[in-house]
């Protein structure tokens, strides 16, 4: 087996990509979290550029809402306003620490997994993962670790004289602190898991560190913003390209540039030669 074949046959670590915002463009997430430069002061005779951020990337705080949801956007805008107000008033502004998120290779919790809560009044209870915020190492378990809360809308209703009802909401559990653990399918005890190659070295699987038993991936783990299940995904008419057409190979290597190819196709016959120029 040649080296190239080995490289091509190597299993890809696609498990690192699993998540709700898998296909969300990075630039869009940066835009809604305001982690974009407000102005870059450059062209300073070789001195490094100074960037004034709308919100420094380390200050971006992910919460229980997706960054593009209205409540998250409102929180971000408040943060940005405060930051620039402090700047103008020359007040001390404590910048956030860089996020200490678990690397994708070590992250094993997926949506729909059976987990055990290790702290709080629901200690020892088992439930399914309902929501994950990877940026904060957070996991929300369905119906467990709940707190009585009054939402903002209800507060507004109270002002208008409408009776308010407290509701129960799941609270985040930190994976890095071991507040929640996966359940071993063999003995149904809490366990740690890792990604290892399967027998024929073709794909990564998740196994329990204690018993070595495989923990199957639930189908809901593949859900993203665009679809609930990739198997049942249907291409959007006039927008998506089909699988066959996308993977069809039409490129044939030749000794002509892109511009030459297009000129030839369009029947443009350019015979003039360029004069020599100097680059400095």
């Amino acid at each position, binding site marked *: 087996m040649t080296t190239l074949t080995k490289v091509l046959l190597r299993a890809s670590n696609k498990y690192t990509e699993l998540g709700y915002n898998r296909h969300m463009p990075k630039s869009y997430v940066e835009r809604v979290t305001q982690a974009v430069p407000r102005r870059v002061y450059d062209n300073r005779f070789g001195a490094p550029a100074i960037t004034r951020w709308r919100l420094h990337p380390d200050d971006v705080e992910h919460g229980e809402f997706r960054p593009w949801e209205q409540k998250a956007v409102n929180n971000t805008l408040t943060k940005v306003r405060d930051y620039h107000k402090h700047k103008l008033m020359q007040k001390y502004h404590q910048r956030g620490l860089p996020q200490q998120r678990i690397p994708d290779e070590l992250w094993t919790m997926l949506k729909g997994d059976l987990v055990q809560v290790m702290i709080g009044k629901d200690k020892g209870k088992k439930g399914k993962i309902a929501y994950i915020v990877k940026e904060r190492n957070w996991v929300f378990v369905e119906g467990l670790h709940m707190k009585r809360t009054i939402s903002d809308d209800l507060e507004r209703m109270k002002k208008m004289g409408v009776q308010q009802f407290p509701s129960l909401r799941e609270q985040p559990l930190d994976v890095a602190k071991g507040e929640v653990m996966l359940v071993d399918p063999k003995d149904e005890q809490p366990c740690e898991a890792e990604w290892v190659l399967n027998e024929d070295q073709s794909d990564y699987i998740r196994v329990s560190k204690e018993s070595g038993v495989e923990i199957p991936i639930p189908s809901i783990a593949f859900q993203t913003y665009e679809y609930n299940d990739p198997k049942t995904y249907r291409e959007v008419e006039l927008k998506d390209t089909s699988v066959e057409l996308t993977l069809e190979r039409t490129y044939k290597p030749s000794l002509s540039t892109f511009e030459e190819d*297009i000129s030839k196709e369009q029947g443009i016959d350019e015979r003039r030669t360029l004069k020599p120029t*100097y680059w400095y």
Partner: protein
Amino acid sequence: MHKLHRFARCCRQLSAMRRVPLLSTNEACSLHTSAVMQVSKGRIDEFFDSADSFGKNELPVKDRPGRSWSVAELRLKSSSDLHKLWYVLLKERNMLLTMEQAYKDAIRVFPNPERLDRVKDSMDNLEAVVRERNNALMELEYGESGATPTKTVTSFMGFKYEKELQEHIEPPHMHAVGKEYETPYLDDDAHMMQKLWEEKEWWKRRNMAEELGRRTRKDRSKIVYSERQLRSD
């Protein structure tokens, strides 16, 4: 083929496009005569989003278009296909920008603005693939890539940096810009500037390290997975 593979967005089917011939003079004339008919057939609709999405804050899951074209997928396509795809993407971007402005004028929420980023990603990837192919050919035939050349120069403040070169008709000795170059030794002013600059940067780094140390000591529960990035600004 991987089952989970999802397919790139915002493209009319390439096969359908291949069937559209280039307009000859006669056809172009007939277009004028049947302009109204063309409009009624729905050609003007291509400048706008589908009417079902009007006034919605977010597209329903079944109408959300897929991800952008990746570099790996675009490498499979011929120059001709890439050329067509570029205009498909350009049309889509034009449509999205039109819709964005319309929603802005009506003071409404533009549904799924990430579509614009998806188109931009695709266009960037497409350009990267074209550049990659052209550069490979240039390296093969001329021994240098077609990228803009750069050179290292020293500024009057003593900074050494890479500068992008510009194309000129006259030879370099006729221009002041042509005489910029990298100097091995700095003059007194530039030397002092560099010394003071280094000192300032050192203090910034040290203060930031102290600050980070103080704050991590405060919160011992934080687990460090990688080396902290020190920020200078």
